[in-house]
């Protein structure tokens, strides 16, 4: 109980580990493409928490800047991925990724 009280680096790393595990679980086990995208967002958030935690306890600005770039990349990734999902829905009439098994119309 003693080591739980002062909030330290391990607390943030624990939360990040949980988010990473849940995100990986969603990516591996779900068939709906949009839930898989949500899992990817969870993984990116876990990485961001790690960057910022190490940056705070290191005193540098590297992690803060990197997490800013991660957020930008996540926005680009979400836009492209949803465009692809909408195209998949137009062609296959479903967003089930296990039924997408051809590369040509």
């Amino acid at each position, binding site marked *: 109980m003693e080591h739980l009280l002062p909030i330290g*680096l391990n607390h943030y790393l624990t939360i990040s580990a949980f988010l990473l595990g849940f995100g*990986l679980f969603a990516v591996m086990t779900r068939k709906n493409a949009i839930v898989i995208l949500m899992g990817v967002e969870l993984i990116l958030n876990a990485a961001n928490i790690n960057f910022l935690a190490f940056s705070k306890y290191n005193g540098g600005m590297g992690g*803060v800047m990197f997490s800013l770039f991660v957020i930008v990349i996540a926005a680009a*990734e979400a836009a492209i991925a949803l465009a692809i999902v909408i195209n998949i829905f137009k062609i296959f009439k479903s967003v089930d990724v296990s039924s997408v098994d051809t590369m040509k119309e």
Partner: protein
Amino acid sequence: MIMNDLTYTIIFYLFAAITVFSAAFVVFSRNVIYSAFSLLFTFFGVAALYVFLSADFIAVTQVVVYVGGILVLLLFGVMFTKGIMNTELKSDVLHIVPGTLILAGIIGALLYTFYTTHTWMQTEKQLHGSIVERIGYETMSHYVLPFEMVSILLLAALIGAAFLARFDRLDHDNNKS
């Protein structure tokens, strides 16, 4: 420190619980709409944790970009691909046993490593207070090239997304005739 230590700890655990439990609900809920709205709480919880990590600017960016942009985009994707009250929104699950094994394995291995190896070496000069000014200096000095490159990348990605998801005039004409 202005805040009482115990209050600080309790508020931290509150936001940590919100983040972790809503993330679990995102993953284990079978309804896509419930998952999307639970993701909202995860993003807000993570933004609160960023404030605890004295990254206030990143927290505001997280709320603006994730909640205002990505989450709306995801909801739009859900509602565009299926009717919102459609029962087929419930999504199937496959590889449940290896998935659970890897989930438990990864979380267990990471936590075991964190808590049993050694204590982290922490600096005396931790970040504290507002870092908005320092982010401005860093963006315009050390990180000016990545900053410009990421802006071009974002522009290209958004043009590409608009091109990919655009209304297909040819198909529409064929369907009408």
